[in-house]
């Protein structure tokens, strides 16, 4: 019962946010210079053709009706049609989603594999001896993906080593080849996450270390390893889970620049190319999908909270 009381308002908020997001995205497309008919038909349009298009797409109706119509199509999975290929854009997005998802998973894995242990080590070492965590955190959070990606591309196109730049192959066809292509972009995307997770873990651990129950455990003579495992990590996990879910939400769309840099055919590159081709249906769908993914991931993180923190929903949470 307490869980329903905790989750229901959050689901309601997610729905409101979704509605707001779709209104903004819908309105944004209305403001594109030239209007829909001009984009579709090019600069030399007869008034009749313009009227025909307006009627066909319902542009002659009040905006509210247009929005309702658009939203209804969305709910049925219709995200619009590419002006270039005249095919539903959602099919292309679904086809490319696994690529971006793989990229995001690699980045998340690397970020967790380095960020959490380094953060714990640096947090437990404390202010005096944990400086390495600060340096890694400061550098990692400050090098933009573009810069790091370019540096990696330079290094690995001069000395190929084992990696490859460009020439994507699906994982299902050739897993090893796929990794040769995907590891570098994944690594590029992960560095900000390493810094973010490291800093959050470090702060959380340092915060927990100052609390009374740790002193008590030390006084009881518990082994340091057990103190960290049983008392520190469980309490430090909550802010880390928040930041990990937020990071994952951003990853799926932060992939744009990495996909462009490394020519990885994911949804980010597809949306970007949609913009270059003035295929606005693709841009619109891309923005909407990114926002929806972000909202859904936040929902999942709220549910995770309830699983990790027994105080959730009981009103005893600080």
């Amino acid at each position, binding site marked *: 019962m307490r869980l329903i009381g905790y989750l229901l308002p959050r689901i309601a*908020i997610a729905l*409101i*946010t979704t509605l*707001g*997001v779709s209104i*903004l*995205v819908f309105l*944004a497309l209305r*403001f*594109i*210079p030239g209007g829909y008919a001009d984009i579709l038909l090019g600069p030399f349009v007869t008034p009749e053709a313009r009227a025909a298009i307006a009627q066909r797409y319902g542009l002659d109706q009040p905006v509210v009706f247009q929005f309702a119509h658009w939203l209804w199509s969305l709910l049925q999975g219709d995200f619009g049609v590419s002006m270039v290929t005249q095919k539903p854009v959602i099919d292309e997005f679904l086809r490319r989603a696994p690529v971006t998802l793989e990229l995001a998973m690699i980045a998340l894995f690397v970020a967790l594999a380095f960020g959490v242990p380094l953060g714990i080590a640096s947090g437990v070492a404390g202010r005096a001896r944990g*400086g390495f965590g*600060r*340096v890694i955190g*400061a*550098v990692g*959070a*400050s*090098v*933009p*993906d*573009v*810069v790091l990606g*370019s*540096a990696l*591309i*330079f290094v690995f*196109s*001069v000395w190929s080593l084992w990696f490859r730049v460009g020439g994507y192959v699906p994982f299902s066809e050739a897993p090893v080849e796929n990794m040769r292509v995907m590891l570098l972009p994944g690594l590029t995307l992960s560095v900000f996450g390493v810094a*973010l997770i490291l800093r*959050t873990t470090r*702060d*959380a651990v340092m*915060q927990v270390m*100052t609390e009374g129950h740790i002193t008590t455990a030390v006084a009881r003579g518990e082994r340091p390893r057990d103190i960290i495992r049983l008392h520190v990590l469980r309490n430090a996990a909550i802010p880390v889970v*928040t*930041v990990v879910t*937020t*990071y994952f*939400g*951003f990853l*799926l*769309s*932060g992939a*744009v*620049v990495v996909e*462009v840099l490394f020519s990885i055919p994911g949804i980010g590159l597809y*949306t*970007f190319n949609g*913009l270059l081709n*003035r295929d*606005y249906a693709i*841009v*619109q769908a*891309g*923005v909407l999908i*990114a*926002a929806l993914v*972000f*909202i859904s991931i936040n929902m999942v993180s709220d549910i995770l909270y309830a699983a990790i923190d027994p105080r959730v929903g009981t009103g005893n949470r600080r």
Partner: protein
Amino acid sequence: MSALRSTGAALGRLMREDKLSFLGLVILVLLVLVGLFGPWLPLGDPTRIAAGPRLGPPSWAFPFGTDELGRSYLPRVVEGIRATFLLSIVAVSITAVIGSFFGMLAGYFRGVTDHLVARGADILFAFPAIIVGLLVAAMMGPGQISAVAVISIATIPLFIRVVRSVTLSVAGRGFVTASEVAGATPWRVMIVHILPNILGAVIVQLTYAMSIGMIIESTLSYLGLGVQPPQASLGSLLREGSAYLTIAPWLVLSAGIVLSLAIMSVNLVGDAIRDAIEPLKGRTLT
């Protein structure tokens, strides 16, 4: 005011004792000075074509090498520093005004106002910055104004959340209640009593928003959606240089290293200010 002075003293102590913070401050001051006085420094003319060889490597005469038109790259990077800083400062100022206003409104009035502002922030927060950049570029065309808009859209929700939570804690304190009992209007309470007390948090957020702004600017300009050539920003220089990445890597590397240093120095100074204001509080900006 005394609170401000003690914060200043704590900041000074931190800068003296902590090497990393001090390093950040030194780099930031250097970059700002170079950005401000760049045109008057004897670095060479950024626009002079064929000043040296095409795509020449770094040398004494051209410390950052030369670009494809034989322009010296160092003065161009200096121009880029100026543009990137200016653009981010403009965007973050807009964010600070809008974000502080709505954050204070939500934190002070609470109730329905709070809900409305929070939902608005949620909606903006759901859009990832670079994706918004694509949409804004579609609407307004690529350019500096688009970049400023994208940075503001991305940082406003973060700002609102922080200002709101700080306002909530300040609004519950005695002097605010005293002022309300004495009959002060809400606006007076917010401006005279709450604003000075949330200023520290605002400044810390300002530095974080600034570093986010610089990352967004460079990414958008790299993608061709922000600052357009021939104007130089650190991001547009990255874009220009990336065409010659394998034959003239110093172009991308010099702009990229300067950009990373700039972002890092802003972050380090922000961390130092935060530690001086609230020594044990966790980081607020994700």
